[in-house]
């Protein structure tokens, strides 16, 4: 009887020690759910969701503070992916936060730019190059199309230009068939 009790107590102690050790040793830094939500978000960093970037929005979703339908760049597929991840029903995009637009890049009209650096400060991904009183330019391959640089420009020299379709990004279409009237 005593032996059995001792064995059980010993086992409980040993297993508890292992669990306690692994809890410290393999502690997961940060919230894995936030990272998984962040991985779905398009990383435009546009702030249309009402949060100052994709990560803060991911944190807000994870804490239940924000809804999953506030990201226009992610569009319906983004909402669906978030719904799948979180196990909730997908819902239509909330129109308050804007409508999805075709992917664009910012283009600075270099004949108008006065070199005020305001757009450089606004760019969330450091995709604008230039210095005070010198012309600025957008690194197109880094631009996320967030439009945050457009409003601060005092001379309105930044325009958003849709990327459009060219040979590099052209995709084969989903096969569709014409329905013909039978004779």
């Amino acid at each position: 009887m005593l032996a059995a009790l001792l064995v059980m107590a010993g086992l409980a102690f040993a297993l508890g020690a292992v669990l306690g050790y692994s809890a410290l040793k393999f502690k997961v830094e940060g919230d894995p759910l936030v990272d998984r939500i962040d991985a779905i978000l398009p990383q435009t960093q546009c702030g249309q969701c009402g949060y100052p970037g994709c990560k803060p929005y991911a944190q807000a979703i994870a804490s239940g503070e924000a809804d999953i339908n506030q990201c226009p760049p992610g569009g319906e597929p983004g909402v669906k992916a978030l719904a799948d991840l979180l196990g909730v029903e997908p819902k239509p995009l909330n129109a308050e936060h804007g409508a999805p637009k075709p992917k664009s890049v910012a283009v600075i009209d270099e004949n108008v730019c006065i070199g005020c650096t305001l757009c450089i400060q606004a760019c969330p991904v450091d995709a604008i190059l230039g210095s005070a009183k010198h012309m600025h330019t957008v690194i197109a391959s880094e631009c996320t199309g967030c439009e945050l640089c457009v409003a601060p420009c005092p001379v309105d020299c930044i325009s958003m230009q849709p990327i459009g379709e060219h040979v590099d990004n052209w995709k084969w279409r989903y096969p569709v068939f014409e329905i013909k009237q039978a004779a």
Partner: protein
Amino acid sequence: MISKIFKFNGGVHPPENKLESTGRPIQRLGIPGELVLPLRQHIGNLPKIRVQPGDQVLKGQLLAEAEGSISAAVHAPTSGMIVSIEDKLIPHPSGLPDMCITLKTDGEDRWIPHEPVDWRQRNPAELAASLRDSGIVGLGGAAFPTQIKLRPSGGSGVKTLIINGAECEPYITCDDMLMRERADEIVKGIEIAQHLLKADNCIVGIEDNKPEAEKAMRVACAGSASKIGVAVVPTLYPSGDARRLTALLTGIEVPSSKRSTDVGIQVFNVATMLAVYRYLEHGETVTSRIVTVTGNVGAPGNFEVLLGSSIEFLLAAAGGALPDTNGLIMGGPMMGFSLPSSKTPIIKATNCIIAGAPKLFPEPPPAMPCIRCARCADACPVNLQPQELYWYARGRNLEKAREYQLFDCIECGCCSYVCPSDIPLVQYYRFAKSEIIAQDKAKEAASLARERNDFRLARIEREKQERAQKHAQKAAGAKAEAGADDAKKAAIEAAMARAQAQKAEVTPQNTENLDLAVQAKIADIDARRAQTEAKAENKEEQQEN
């Protein structure tokens, strides 16, 4: 030397239709008035343009230079003047325009000075590097830059060289005619490739529907100093696919995740070997290629044509497209694509132009539902499950399609060919592939943006801390240096004055003709900026105190 021909699973045997275009020898075409040379003639990076409109160029002169590791150069196919560098329609399934160099020919066909290379004496690595300027790409249709495939690899060497003369796709006969007429030069090219790769074995694989080509190649190989074997494989589409031919000739199935060089095999098309020979033995870059023109044309045949010639020009040489022609196909009927226009140019990858007509390619009957008969699985030479891939691609379940090895699909069209429900299966696979590629690219861009955003936030934080530290130091220093000598103070003042002067010298641009409202806005911003700066300074000083 060749003892056994192995087998691969599946495959189909569509009507060959090759006899139409093998009746006449290869005909060399003249110089058209204008050549349009797309930069995108190969797989990989676009080459960098080295000429300007107005430049006079000679035949074989470099127009665009290979850029990055996978790329190929573009040369002038004849002498003349560059008239424009702009977007024009190119032969691509998208039908979209892309960057092209347009050359107005002068009819003189003057070469730039070019020299043969004594390749037997040169180091293989050096020779392979020199091929970067040759513009040679795989001429079988895939157009992969050849210099990469001919690089002597470090550890795992290439033991077996396979020369692809199978030409399995219906209608196409350009390699057949090339082997019949220029077998000697092909064999010399093979000798060079053997020298470069130090490959002991070499097998030329030819389908059994080309007895003349086989005979010519046997004669040429017998006359060669190195040991080159000719193997005849049964006519079965797609035996000309590099991995299928490897399986047929060696019995080795290259794993999907590996390259053929990982198992000691390298595969080249016969026309590519000839191009390598012309470059190293004569110094001639790729300026022309042989194209089969067949289908609904007056006089089908094979033509040696300058790159950049329009397809219209080529069709005219083949007796013109007959009146009931309803489309043009580049490549074969199984894997080719419809050309957007007959004005597009011939590029390095153009092996065949087929004029289509309802009597040759009747409109396919409407697709019926899949009945899961799995005939496509029997026909698939890659041993995939086309019916599963079809369901996943059709339902846009892209992850699942990828899991079922969608990217191993070679788009040969065997599955669509045997499908009793006439489902255009390959169209679904192409759609799914390009959709997955686009998604992967978007994901890559997103992770780059995330990285840059994280970096920016970290930088802002760091700068804030640095500023605080600097102010703390300054405050401490000011206290200590309360009685610093005048010389030092004067020096500091002078430096500050210099900085001020420098700042004043830089005048903002584009500010001359601004209207009053905008000027007011700018002044407002400047004021705000000065204010915030002052505020920040005050705050920091307060913190220090």
